[in-house]
């Protein structure tokens, strides 16, 4: 069996790694709060000419994204199972749940790429060719949409890489029930990505 990875020292009754991840997540949450507040400020200006998302994306587009939300929530719960199985010592099941989590993240990214491609080619062709007419509504709609979903998508991509590293750690026997807190910290990041998506989905697609 390969040598274990140290789970890290503890201070103040909390693992240092956990404090570090929480500190990072708080900073990240504030970044998202800034983006969301800027979006809200632009949208709720007098006469902003902001379109309704339901009319712009169409009900089908919203439901595709709702399904994507479903996938992300499911991959969050499969991450919970990775931690539970690791703590119980069922490392093979933990590996399989981690694969499901990674697949969920990749599926989310794929659907988002599909959505971006179609939005830019069908709804916002002026981004591609100078001759195309921009839409009649406020162009901040497109820019805040791409900003918020793009920044979140980058987080999902990083989360998938993080989970792949954890998966390899499980496979190679470097992570087991003695240092399962490594999985817990990775899970904190992954659940945070899910949490942010709940907010972004509500504020950008639904309201």
């Amino acid at each position, binding site marked *: 069996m390969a040598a274990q990875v140290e789970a890290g020292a503890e201070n*103040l*009754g*909390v693992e240092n790694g*956990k*404090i570090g991840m*929480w*500190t990072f*997540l*708080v900073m990240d*949450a*504030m970044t998202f*709060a*800034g983006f*969301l*507040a*800027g979006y*809200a*400020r632009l*949208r*709720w*200006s*007098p*006469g*902003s*000419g*902001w379109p309704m*998302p*339901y009319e712009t994306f169409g*009900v089908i587009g*919203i*439901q595709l994204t*709702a399904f994507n*939300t*479903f996938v992300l*929530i*499911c991959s*969050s*719960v499969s*991450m*919970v*199972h990775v931690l*539970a199985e690791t*703590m*119980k010592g069922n490392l093979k099941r933990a590996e399989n749940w981690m694969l499901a989590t990674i697949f969920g993240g990749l599926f989310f990214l794929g659907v988002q790429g599909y959505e971006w491609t179609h939005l830019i080619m069908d709804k916002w062709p002026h981004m591609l060719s100078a001759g195309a007419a921009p839409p009649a509504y406020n162009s901040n709609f497109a820019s805040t949409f791409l900003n918020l979903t793009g920044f979140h998508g980058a987080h999902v991509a990083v989360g998938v890489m993080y989970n792949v590293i954890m998966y390899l750690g499980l496979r190679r026997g470097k992570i087991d029930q003695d240092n399962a807190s490594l999985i*817990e910290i990775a*899970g*904190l990041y992954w*659940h*945070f990505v*899910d*949490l942010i998506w*709940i*907010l972004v*989905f*509500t*504020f950008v697609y*639904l*309201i």
Partner: protein
Amino acid sequence: MAHEQKTFLGIDFLYSTYMYVWVALLVLTVVEVIVPEPSLIGLSAFPRWVVVLSLIMLALGKTFMVAWYYMHLIDERPSIIGIACAPFIFSVFLTIGLWPHRAQMPEEPTSSNQQPAAESVERAAADGASDEPSSAGMTLAADSLSQSK
């Protein structure tokens, strides 16, 4: 974390809290999709402020559930819970700071000459009022007071 050892078809996790939270998150997501487009289940449209307020409450509720159960704030030390609350406090100040005129000027000059469609005026007014209930509510209350005098 409590793991109950009951089994359902050989799977021992279906009865744990996590799965209830998962089901609740999925149900709330479906509700969220229906609220802005009630015609999906054959209802007529809700008033705009109902849609905005209920969506914000639903999103905050789901956020809380993920943070509380999945990110284990439920059995975390109070210091970590305090750290986790910081962005929300930050967001409140950010929101107040981004609408300074709502706090200072009760009678905002209307910019209706810039707006092409009367519908968008109504929508912008409804959006603005429901987006920031506290200060907008105070503004409206101040308006109605000054009108009644």
